[in-house]
């Protein structure tokens, strides 16, 4: 699992409230990513980070912000949650070791916005 944990694993919240999801990695990887996974879609990139305080938007970044103040933590914030943000959120890291340049994923966070 490349030492990736996500918290919380499950969350139920109400429309309009802010929500922060945390991704923590223990192996000092530079690149970290947040994806959402919904029926009928592949994993869609929300934001990614290429180092401390270096982040960029993905294809579905509206309504989300991120922060990375330490190498090991990448936070995803839903500034004002909406029902369309009900999804499963995955954090990933990039690991490039010679032949392989793969993304490894955390266990996911299930978010329900009522």
């Amino acid at each position, binding site marked *: 699992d490349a030492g*990736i944990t996500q918290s919380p694993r499950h969350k139920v919240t109400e429309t309009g409230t802010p929500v922060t999801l945390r991704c923590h990695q223990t192996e000092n990887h530079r690149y970290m990513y947040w994806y959402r996974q919904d*029926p009928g879609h592949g994993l869609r990139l929300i934001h990614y980070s290429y180092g401390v305080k270096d982040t960029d938007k993905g294809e579905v970044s509206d309504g989300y912000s991120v922060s990375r103040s330490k190498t090991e933590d990448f936070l995803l914030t839903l500034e004002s949650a909406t029902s369309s943000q009900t999804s*499963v959120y*995955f954090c990933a890291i990039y690991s490039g070791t010679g032949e392989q*340049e*793969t993304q490894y994923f955390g266990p996911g966070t299930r978010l329900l916005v009522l």
Partner: protein
Amino acid sequence: GESVGLHLPTLSVQEGDNSIINCAYSNSASDYFIWYKQESGKGPQFIIDIRSNMDKRQGQRVTVLLNKTVKHLSLQIAATQPGDSAVYFCAETDSGTYKYIFGTGTRLKVLA
């Protein structure tokens, strides 16, 4: 239950048979490809990868085939087992971009 996979194509195979899962990729510039397995309630797990300078790569019970002419990738699982039941999806990347494009996946059901 899981939120992913409600509208996925499904491949049903008999235990012990071989499975073939297909994927069409989109970017001609992609030069590295990965297959992932995702079990219910879990994150995707790396299975096998292949670079664009190869057309076949074998792992333990799994083989990936790449046809760059038609932008097609396949995953072959030999002697399919109940533990192989999961959603499988491919990913592609243009090396150096650090960004990946993911397919929507195929559900594999292994029948006893």
